[in-house]
């Protein structure tokens, strides 16, 4: 990047918080995503507030510099891989938390991680009930920007469902506030669907392509203290999927419901069984691992009893190994990261949603590509709200074997097409889906028009949101 531009950036954030050093740029060339090759930016800045970000975007627009917005750098689908010689704006210094106890909401800066927020809220007996599996490194705002999900989503839906409003710096450097807080006289965040269309929603899952989310206002809830942990086994996917729907229809408060194939669970247990204290056993064709949570014990007991009955009514059996769901839930900030790392491989993923009654189709498609290309992988899923299941295929490769990785790249590409045709919905519109979403041409064109209207110079993360 030209030194004169770097000087302009330094005037905004101070010399200390701008870097063009080779080593620094190298570390911003990648993220937790193993699905994209590194790309070295031209400069990285660490602003402290929305006003500085506005000034930075002015400079970027003036010089037509592509901008990548990054917070925790934990995203897995190439969302924050910069453009060559582009500008990375890292948001970790935006770190305030403001609680609105009477409004059951909290406003957090874009640099606040789930772990930090959870510690803060727990002092008040509250929580944000959904957290991604990367909760210790991931910021709340970052997860809103990718419309994530995770433990808690089985009851409360995706992260986007928790959002009451956003502070956004638009590409033209204007700062806007959405939701009830758009009224400067409002007492705080209490209503998202205010002032006409859901502008908040426009930015949820926008992958930093439409503006910079500088703070997020989220719903908070009384922290649940009562939990029931159990596993339920089924001999067919139909039984398992019916059970998931029965739980929903009967308002069983399952905060985290995962669905595993027998061989996948065996694979996990081979690696993690000892850590979890689970003896070797033969797992059924499909297993549901479930945590039911309630703020009242009597309600929990009622739900737990009902869940057991529903399992048996749908032809399943209660397995009763509580350690597994308990580890999943109590260790949710760390356990999933551990499960992803313990085997030693790197992987590509292709997050998507299915309906609970169609989740087996994802399993079938990934099994097909695994057989065709000859690699190890799996997919499991967890319920994410009203009638959806988050599926997360993992395609493993050896990071020191370029041929192995090339094979996975090809399989990954193929899987995007085949999965889409099963009815899969890519809630994170990562660039891998570009050209794979037959029948969405008009939708994608409309999205492109929106982007052009908001970001006429196309400086914000170009090419990332579905390739736009």
């Amino acid at each position, binding site marked *: 990047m030209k030194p004169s531009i770097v000087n302009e950036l330094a005037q905004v954030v101070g010399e*200390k*918080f701008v*870097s063009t*050093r*080779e*080593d*620094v740029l*190298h*570390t*911003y060339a*990648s*993220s*937790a995503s*193993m699905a994209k090759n590194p790309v070295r930016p031209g400069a*990285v800045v*660490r602003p402290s507030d929305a006003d500085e970000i506005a000034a930075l975007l002015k400079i970027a627009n003036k010089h037509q510099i592509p901008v990548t917005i990054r917070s*925790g*750098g*934990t995203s897995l689908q190439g969302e924050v891989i910069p453009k060559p010689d582009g500008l990375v704006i*890292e948001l*970790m*210094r935006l770190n305030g938390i403001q609680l609105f106890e009477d409004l059951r909401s909290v406003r957090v800066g874009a640099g606040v*991680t789930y*772990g*930090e927020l*959870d*510690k803060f809220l*727990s002092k008040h007996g509250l929580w944000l009930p959904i957290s991604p599996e*990367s909760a*210790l*490194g991931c910021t709340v705002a970052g997860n809103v920007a990718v419309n994530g999900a995770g433990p808690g989503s089985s009851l409360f839906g995706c992260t986007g469902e928790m959002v009451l409003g956003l502070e956004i710096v638009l590409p033209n450097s204007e700062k806007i506030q959405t939701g009830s807080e758009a009224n400067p006289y409002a007492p705080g965040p209490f209503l998202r669907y205010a002032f006409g269309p859901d502008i908040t929603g426009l930015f949820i899952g926008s992958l930093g392509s439409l503006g910079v989310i500088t703070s997020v206002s989220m719903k908070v809830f009384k922290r649940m203290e009562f939990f029931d942990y159990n596993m339920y086994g089924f001999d067919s996917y139909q039984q398992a999927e019916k059970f998931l729907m029965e739980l929903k229809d009967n308002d069983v408060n399952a905060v985290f419901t995962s669905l595993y194939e027998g061989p996948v669970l065996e694979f996990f247990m081979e690696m993690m069984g000892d850590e979890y204290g689970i003896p070797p056993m033969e797992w059924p064709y499909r297993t549901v691992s479930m945590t039911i949570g309630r703020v009242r014990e009597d309600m929990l007991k009622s739900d737990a009893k009902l869940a057991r009955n529903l399992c048996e009514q749908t032809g399943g059996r209660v397995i009763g190994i509580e350690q597994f769901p308990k580890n999943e839930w*109590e260790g949710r*900030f*760390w356990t999933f*990261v*551990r499960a*992803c*790392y*313990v085997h*030693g491989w*790197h992987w590509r993923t292709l997050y998507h949603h299915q309906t609970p009654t169609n989740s087996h189709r994802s399993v079938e498609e990934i099994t097909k590509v695994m057989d065709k290309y000859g690699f190890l992988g799996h997919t499991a899923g967890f319920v994410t709200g009203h009638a959806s299941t988050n599926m997360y295929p993992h395609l493993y490769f050896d*990071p*020191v074997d370029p041929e192995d990785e090339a094979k996975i790249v090809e399989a990954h590409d193929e899987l995007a097409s085949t999965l889409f045709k099963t009815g899969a919905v890519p809630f994170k519109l990562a660039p891998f889906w570009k050209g794979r979403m037959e029948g969405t041409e008009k939708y994608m064109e409309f999205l492109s028009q929106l982007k052009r209207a908001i970001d006429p110079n196309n400086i914000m993360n170009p090419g990332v949101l579905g390739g736009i």
Partner: protein
Amino acid sequence: MTEIDLDDLREELLQCRRCGICRNSVYEAKGFDGICPIWRNTSGFETSFMRGKIQVALALLDGTLERTAENAESLYQCALCGNCTQICAAEFHPAHIMETVRYVLNELPNESRDKIAESIKSVDNPYNEDPSSRRVWLEELGLNVPTSSEILYFVGCTSGLRIQNIAKNTALILNAAKTDFAVMENEPCCGSVMMRTGRMEEARENAEKVVDAIKATGAKKVIVSCAGCLKTLRKDYSEKFGIEMPEILHIVEYSKELLAENKLKLKSLDNIKVTYHDPCHLGREMEIYEEPREIIQAIPGVNLVEVNPNRNTAICCGAGGGLRSYDSDLSRKIAADRMKAFEETGAKTVVSACPFCETNLIAGSKLLDSDIEVVDVVDLLRRAIE
């Protein structure tokens, strides 16, 4: 140390999947309240914490980054405190692997590393002090301590040459318990800092010299008052060089035995509120967390309050891994940050069990203009001995 296989090293570094939880994780259920003191006390770019350091290491190894002093800065701007290892979910030890990277890349320019190694080689201490002053503190005490005995007090360079109160009070505790002990005439440096900074070959030669010197004293048990000496003599010599050592004990471990055997009689100190700083080498590396606390709590009138985080998730004082020499301003800044946390406990005294931590915490205290006293466990224990 065995020859490093670069493919194995790369494979191990690639265990890092760049999740970034080594930056600033707050995980209340497991006691984590922040991870990397470097990230917190610098401009905070990715190179400041372990995820970035590993990416830099890989790039320096495979040539993606040119091997310059600037590109290597992040490798040395690390206290190797190991808090990242505590939170890391992958199957490797980031802090230890960074030590290996420093060794493999030890042709990279680093003036402070080289100066320290040369000083240890030429005058047996990293401070380039006159080695003949090693036993001056003993003369000041007026104790007649021999140079050979079954129990050896291995004083260490910082206690012997910089914070001699620790050496004096250790000796007075041993004396009060009627322990016959020796102190070497020309005690060599344990070589810890050589290992941490990547001068492993010199560290091996130095270790052989240390072992010979210890053997010459006839010691069957070696007591140390420095957390770094403990880790080096008890763990590194055997693991890295295959050297067998006599029993090595930190004074907090030995004092615990003395207290259990009623060999030390303690008087009450005047209702003082203290907090404890876990040295990384004593805590995370050697898993000695309770002994110093038990000693402090054994002293009547002393009220121990914990700083958060503590034990295996404690934040480093900023002195280790060669950082104090490589970037002393940053090192002091980290110590000042740590002192702020101690102030929040309401304690008037910070107790540690490592002279290097104490040196840096005092520096941090000055930077912060704090009025908290920083002492070693042996200082406190000595005050209470009747």
